[in-house]
């Protein structure tokens, strides 16, 4: 049932809890893990502020650095895990990229931390976890 479990991590506490849950599941099922971090670059803003493209570029470089740190932390936390683990960094819209990655790597389930954006943005767009719940074509487990 669970051969390969994908966990999106953004460095937040719920994401680490999701990773712990996924690890438990993977150990029970002898499954592999795919840990993904999505860097949300300033692409839209980039279009608007063309003249300022250097600062945008710097910002993206910083986000990538932070992304690497998050994946390193994930590696640390997964020490001693008996199965295979793939680490992956993607750029773009979090929910979309997570689903693309799940499809590309033919994972059997996604375990995601529940974390809302705030206020109006969550109301209009929904959180990443709720978009995954609605649009992913594989089982999704939402961890508090």
């Amino acid at each position, binding site marked *: 049932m669970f051969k390969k479990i994908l966990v999106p991590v953004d460095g937040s506490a719920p994401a680490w809890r999701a990773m712990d849950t996924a690890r*438990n599941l993977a150990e029970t099922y002898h499954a592999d893990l795919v840990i993904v971090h999505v860097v949300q670059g300033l692409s839209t803003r980039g279009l608007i502020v063309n003249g300022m493209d250097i600062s945008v570029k710097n910002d993206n470089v910083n986000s990538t650095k932070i992304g690497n740190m998050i994946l390193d932390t994930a590696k640390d936390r997964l020490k001693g895990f008996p199965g295979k683990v793939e680490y992956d960094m993607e750029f773009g819209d979090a929910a979309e990229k997570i689903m693309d990655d799940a499809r590309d790597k033919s994972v059997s389930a996604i375990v995601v931390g529940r974390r*809302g954006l705030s206020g109006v943005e969550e109301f209009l767009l929904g959180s990443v976890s709720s978009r995954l719940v609605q649009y992913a074509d594989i089982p999704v487990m939402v961890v*508090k």
Partner: protein
Amino acid sequence: MFKKIMVPVDGSVTSWKALEKAKALAELCHGDLVVAHVVLTYSNAELYVQEAGGDILDVERTTMKKLGTHVLDTAKSKMEGFSGKVEYVMEVGQPASQILNLAEKHEVTDIVIGCRGLGGIEEFLLGSVSSKVAQHAKVPVLIVK
């Protein structure tokens, strides 16, 4: 993890898929199951049609409960051969909030639920039962497609 799994069933194909998945998970982790069915009634309509008398609503409610019993009987037959404990519960009210109440009352460790949209504008405005449960539950929620 997966010590006591709650599965809400409404008789839909996806809810049976969720039940099967929960059964497999519970067997692997030696867990128990709570199979819940929530009967939807016309609580809002009730406010408007009080003068029409309780008859129609009573009949409607009795029918819904019969259907509920039928759904739970089907669940029972699908659970044959399961080694752990299974509780069957029926509750009347709004599905998402009743599922959350039942999860707390029965102190379940996880919820496994079928993803099923209401469709169209209703889903856009209100969200599906599964996404409400996923958003508000205090325990991990596995959404089965």
